[in-house]
């Protein structure tokens, strides 16, 4: 399942760390709109590339990007010292 939120946690000057929830679903909606807009151009370019012999690369690119984004859910990265840890989680 594609991640819908990204949780960011980073230290602040005060005792409590700052936690942000980034709405990734908005980013995906924007990407989807962009994809729909460039789809005709991409199909024409892929057809031309196929005629030239390397169309497979263009055709495989979009599904590969989607597959990579789809499996981002569950990725966690924590970096920092004991007192100043920055956390990123894809939820």
């Amino acid at each position, binding site marked *: 399942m594609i991640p819908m939120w990204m949780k960011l946690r980073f230290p602040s000057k005060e005792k409590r760390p700052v936690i942000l929830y980034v709405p990734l679903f908005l980013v995906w909606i924007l990407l989807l709109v962009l994809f729909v807009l460039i789809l005709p151009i991409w199909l024409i370019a892929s057809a031309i590339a196929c005629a030239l012999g390397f169309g497979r*690369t263009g055709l*495989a*690119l979009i599904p*590969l990007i989607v*597959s*990579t984004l*789809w*499996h*981002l*859910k*569950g*990725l*966690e*990265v*924590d*970096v*920092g*010292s*004991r007192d100043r*840890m920055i956390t990123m989680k894809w939820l």
Partner: protein
Amino acid sequence: MSNEKKRILEMLSKKKITIDEAERLLTALGGSPGAGTEPSGKAHPKYLRVQVEPVGPQSEGDRVNIRVPMNLIRAGLKWVSFIPKEVQGKMKTAFIEKGIDVDFNKLKAEDLEELVRNLNDLQVEVDGRDKVRIFCE
């Protein structure tokens, strides 16, 4: 008894595989011939964890804790085919200089499964400063 287990035991009886290999295969399937069925935590690991911690209780170095979904790694392997051949050649040369002989064209998802299956809990201490721990969960 499932067909896979029967096949494994047949290969063991014909000495096509060793006892250790049979046990590993049966554990991956979720059972062993002697004991009852014990589900293995390693049968389908979902995440690869990499932890870097400074050595010593007083150490103030940076800690790194990364959890990568296995499906993301599998999807990432498919990007290898997009690396230009010239760059692949240079990368291969650089890896060989470090003593790692890897052919990016032959890297497959099955290789990753094999690596993950054999990766128990790897701990490496680097220069006495950091401890690197890599494991699956």
